């Protein structure tokens, strides 16, 4: 539901960088979104198609790379890819797993003309 706000932030970053780099058209935006970031890919794509209209990004392509959830035990160091059935109690020693990837939301790069 908050994807509109997220995508507006993405576009604000892209417009700012286009200004800073004397770009007139944004051709592509590449995002990395963790699978436990709380945003939905389809909603991001929909929000992007709505919000880019009549802006410097109106012809821009959006690429979204989904980052898999990863976690590591703070006690025994066991690293494992937590399954989607999120269980952060270490199967080996009962310690707490810390999430090391899969929570991020980043603009990796933009292509400008």
């Amino acid at each position, binding site marked *: 539901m908050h994807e509109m706000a997220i995508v507006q932030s993405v576009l604000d970053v892209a417009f700012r960088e286009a200004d800073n780099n004397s770009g007139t058209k944004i051709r592509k935006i590449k995002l990395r979104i963790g699978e436990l970031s709380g945003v939905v890919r389809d909603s991001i794509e929909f929000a992007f198609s709505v919000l880019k209209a009549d802006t410097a990004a109106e012809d821009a392509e959006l690429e979204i790379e989904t980052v898999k959830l990863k976690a590591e035990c703070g006690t025994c160091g066991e690293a494992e890819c937590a399954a989607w059935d999120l269980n952060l109690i270490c199967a080996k020693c009962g310690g707490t797993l810390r*999430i090391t990837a899969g929570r991020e939301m980043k603009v990796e790069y933009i292509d400008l003309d």
Partner: protein
Amino acid sequence: MHKISLETDIMDANEEFARENRDHFKAHNVAVVNFMSAPGAGKTSLLEKTIARMKDDLRIGVIEGDLMTTLDADRITALGVPAYQITTGSVCHLDARMIHNSLHNFDIEGLDLLIIENVGNLVCPAEFNLGEDLRVMVFSTVEGAEKPKKYPVMFHETDAVVLNKIDLIPYSGVSLEELERNVREVNPEVDIFPVSCTRGDGLDEWTQWFTERISALRGKAEAASV
């Protein structure tokens, strides 16, 4: 065409406001707590019970977030505690900028504790740091034991989970044991408080924990400013 490498965090704009909020709160030695839940879990009921027990010892203020109406702020004001209502219109969460703007209209000078009651929503509020010290999630047990696994982000991001409406467990068939296990799997170090706001079960344990955390937060801020 040229490529600009960025690696910019999409939440940076929010984080910037959150940092300013946190500095402002620290400067006034106010502990700030963000209460989150789905609609109808009992956030306002829990706040009414909690504030009634704490208001003689602490100066408390509340910021209320709702899509529409001032009903919740009216319930808090009725306790003799100042409340400020943010009506978000259609926005499904509070963000740091909304809190920042509200601080122009709501004076936190002289407060010990600022409670922010977020918009009722089990998903979006968890993504937006407001500059708070502590996060508390309220969950209604009748919503089902599997919800922590289905909506993990908020359960993962909170410091405490208050499991409300345990008086309804005999009628709902929900297993409190299974619910607590699921909460713990998503957030192994979280503090869990089963309560009934209507019957009063568990409120002593919850209020004691909450009072101690607020006192520790304010003590730490005082020590840091000496």
